[in-house]
């Protein structure tokens, strides 16, 4: 599922690099390369970038792989993308909220990863609300609340409670896409396995993904 999605999204980003790709050969090599390009972590779905990250291509161009953001993260939620995900993305920072979500540096005055970034790969934001790491998407087919069991774990975990996740008149959580900053605390809190919440990198339309899921399920 994620393969197809990412190919679609990153196709245009691939073009300028076509020459390089040719040099590296085709077949599996291409696949490996493109995986890195599309920032796809094996088994983890699409990669989420740290707070303040610019668009994927700009981020990849600006990030020096210095790992300073990874080192300063107080919750150790930033991880380097491994080599298995492709050469281009290797060692760039990402987060897997289901394992360790972004706690927005808890009590710190500013986000430490942004402050630590020596380039403009991670750019300062005016306030937490302005962050655009990604957008949460609730899969209503597996979300307990949507299935009829009373659960508000994601709503409770949301740092923008009642703004980014609101409860409908049946007490079911709904994501407000414009307000969601993509920290992934909801994904981390989700009680079902696998999580009923998918974190989409900012800019990916949740509706698009939702449709793709429908298609996949048949």
């Amino acid at each position, binding site marked *: 599922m994620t393969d197809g999605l990412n190919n679609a999204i990153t196709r245009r980003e691939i073009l300028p690099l076509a020459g390089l790709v040719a040099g590296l050969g085709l077949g599996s090599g291409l696949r490996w390369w493109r995986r890195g390009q599309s920032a796809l972590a094996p088994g983890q779905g699409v990669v989420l970038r740290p707070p303040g990250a610019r668009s994927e291509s700009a981020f990849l161009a600006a990030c020096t792989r210095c790992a300073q953001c990874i080192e300063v993260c107080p919750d150790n939620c930033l991880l380097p993308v491994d080599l298995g995900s492709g050469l281009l993305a290797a060692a760039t920072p990402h987060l897997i909220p289901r394992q360790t979500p972004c706690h927005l540096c808890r009590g710190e005055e500013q986000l430490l990863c942004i402050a630590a970034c020596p380039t403009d790969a991670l750019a300062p934001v005016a306030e937490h609300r302005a962050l655009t790491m990604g957008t949460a998407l609730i899969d209503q087919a597996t979300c*307990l609340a949507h299935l009829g*069991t009373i659960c*508000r774990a994601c709503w409770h975990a949301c740092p923008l409670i009642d703004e980014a996740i609101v409860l409908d008149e049946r007490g079911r959580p709904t994501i407000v896409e414009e307000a969601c900053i993509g920290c992934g605390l909801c994904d981390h809190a989700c009680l079902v396995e696998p999580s009923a919440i998918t974190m989409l990198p900012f800019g990916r339309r949740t509706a698009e993904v939702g449709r793709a899921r429908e298609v996949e399920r048949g």
Partner: protein
Amino acid sequence: MQIHRRDFVKLSAATTAAAVASGSALSARPKTESKDDIRWAKSVCRFCGTGCGVQLGVSGRHLVALRGDPEHPTTKGLVCAKALFLPKIIQAPERLRYPRIRSRGKLVRATWDEAMELTAERFASAIREHGPNSVAYYGSGQALSEESYLANRLFKGGIGTNNVEGNPRLCMASAVGGYVSTYGKDEPMGCYDDIEHAKTFFLIGSNTAECHPVIFDQIMARRRVGDRANVIVVDPRRSPVGTISDIYLQPIPGFDLALLHGMAQVIIAERKYDEAFVKKNVQFKAVVDGTPKKVGFDGYREFMQDFTPEKAAKICGVPAQDIVRAARMFVQGPTMSFWTMGLNQRITGVWANNLVHNLHLLTGQIGKPGATPFSLTGQPNACGGVRDTGSLCHILPYGRVVKKAEHREQIEKLWGCKPGTIQAKPGLHTIEMFRALGRDEVQAMLVLTTNPGHSLPNATVHREAMGKPRKNKPFMCVIDAYPTRTTELADVLLPAAVWAEKAGVFGMSERRYQYQPDVIDPPGESRSDFDFLLDFAGRLEGKGVVPAGFISAKFKNADDVWEEMCEASRDTAYDFTGMTRERLKQERGLRWPTPTEDHPGTARRFVKGEDPLLDSGPYANPDLKPGELEFYAAPDKRATVWLRPIKPPAEPPDEDFPFVLSTGRVLEHWHTGTMTRAAPELRRAQPEAYVEIHPDDAQGLGVNNGDMVRIVSRRGEAKMRAKVIPMPRPGMVFVPFHWEDDDSLINRVTLDAYDPGSKQPEFKICAVRLAKA
């Protein structure tokens, strides 16, 4: 009931699938066969007092899934997320498996026989040397009714001490005090069915959304139908209940009595009270020089002059116009009130309960479909299991009290005791019991299926009483299923079978007794509390401190005990002699009174046509017309509207300790969390303690969201992360009490002052100061 039932078929199938998945994800458990191999057994949820009907999916002797029981008459298949994890929780690796005895400071494995013999000997020697009042029982609203009944029988009738207490003292004692002082009879007279008839809900001191989620869901459903229900919420903290409120009032903690009086004053001033109802069914009383005195409606009206909305507003901190709005909405009946710990866990707990009843009595919002004052219970079996079986220090089974000679005689006769065995003086109530333990006056204590080392207020003191090594240290026997902050203090620790591992009866908030079967085997050498009590009683009989055969000759199993319980209820207001064991196994619970085997159970007490006690027996009244109401258990058959003064909390905030601390719960965990923390999913969703601080206060303190904060009271301190959020009112902080590590143990900070009537401690209010850690 039109209420939602969200596309039920799809729901239960999917929920089952989810539950099966979580069940089979357990380690060491063989992968579950296909869903067809699962046998479903009806049971009851193990958590709160809602008493949700559940179905247990059993494969062989393994519990592989749980789903809501769609055929359950009141909860209709709904459950909250916690319940789904019960299969995993009950089969968690954390479970205790073997008896242990403390040796050189460590708990080392022992045989059941060794552990039981030591326990019995320590109890027997204490009784011989210091008399029966040197031993004590501290039980639980989570034990089976038969277990509580048996323990109460053993201690009060066998050993001859009234030192029988339990955690319901921390939970609903004030609600009992409220019902008894107002109506002469404990327990909600209404039922869950009233939810679908109510037009207005008055929720006070109850975070129903998280503590009784299924009730909350049913209230929410009443806002989706044509005749949309109103919801008034009163809570100093803006809890998730706020998501469905029309009016949300946040009084100063401890001063909601003025708010309740203020509403009553508006109702009287605007002549919105039910004059005919009041004339027929109500009397007005005030306590003058320590004695209750009738003051009449005029006396009440005069008293209420001090609580005009403007005056009440000054006391409780809620704007006068909001008090008026709430009062006007309250009278748009049928009106149903719900409350829990916010009212009960207070030194004015009984009074606060009385004042809620006042509103219902003035407006006649009682005894009609949808109109009732309903106290929600926090534990699955506090109401039917502890309150009703008389397993507290001042009461005897089914509405009897130790103070009345007539009641003692009835029970002594039933139990086969020598006359005079049951003491006339109430035993030590919870806080005094643990204080006496600290003074080494109680020399041996049995703690059964509860966690006082975590749940008692002012915990440091009471933990030392239980566990601090000293000369003549009292002996502590603890029986539990999980390691807790109490099991670590035990001298003998016994592994308990729980819930689906043993059969018996739970009695929940709405007077419904429900049978739960044993469908799986307990882990290791665990035994039920029932088997433990039988063994313990037999050994005490052998040592001559309990009359020979007092327990052992009469009971072999829980069914035998149930038979005697039915007998004990005969001719009382609880009469459930018609609830045979067979019937309970068939039905999805029955509401007492159920005096005959063909009686369907009682939806509404005190109502002619519904309450069988008005048809026959000592309370019968043939002159009443169907639907008419009579408070038959009250003096003059009239309920009492009490004139209660305002009394500040035991420890109001001051210069040194400027904040009010209140504690509470989250949806994902339950009480001391020993069960829910055994589910990794619940633990991940709510991993650690936190303190909610209002943004204005946080700014003043220089605390950011996520900072570590110290919370200090005169008694102790805790350290946890700040959650800066406008939920508590300014000047108040809120901490959920589920986590057990030393930093999170918020009960080291709370206060053990208690209500002089109900003896329930004031968990909800104490003074603290905060500082960035």
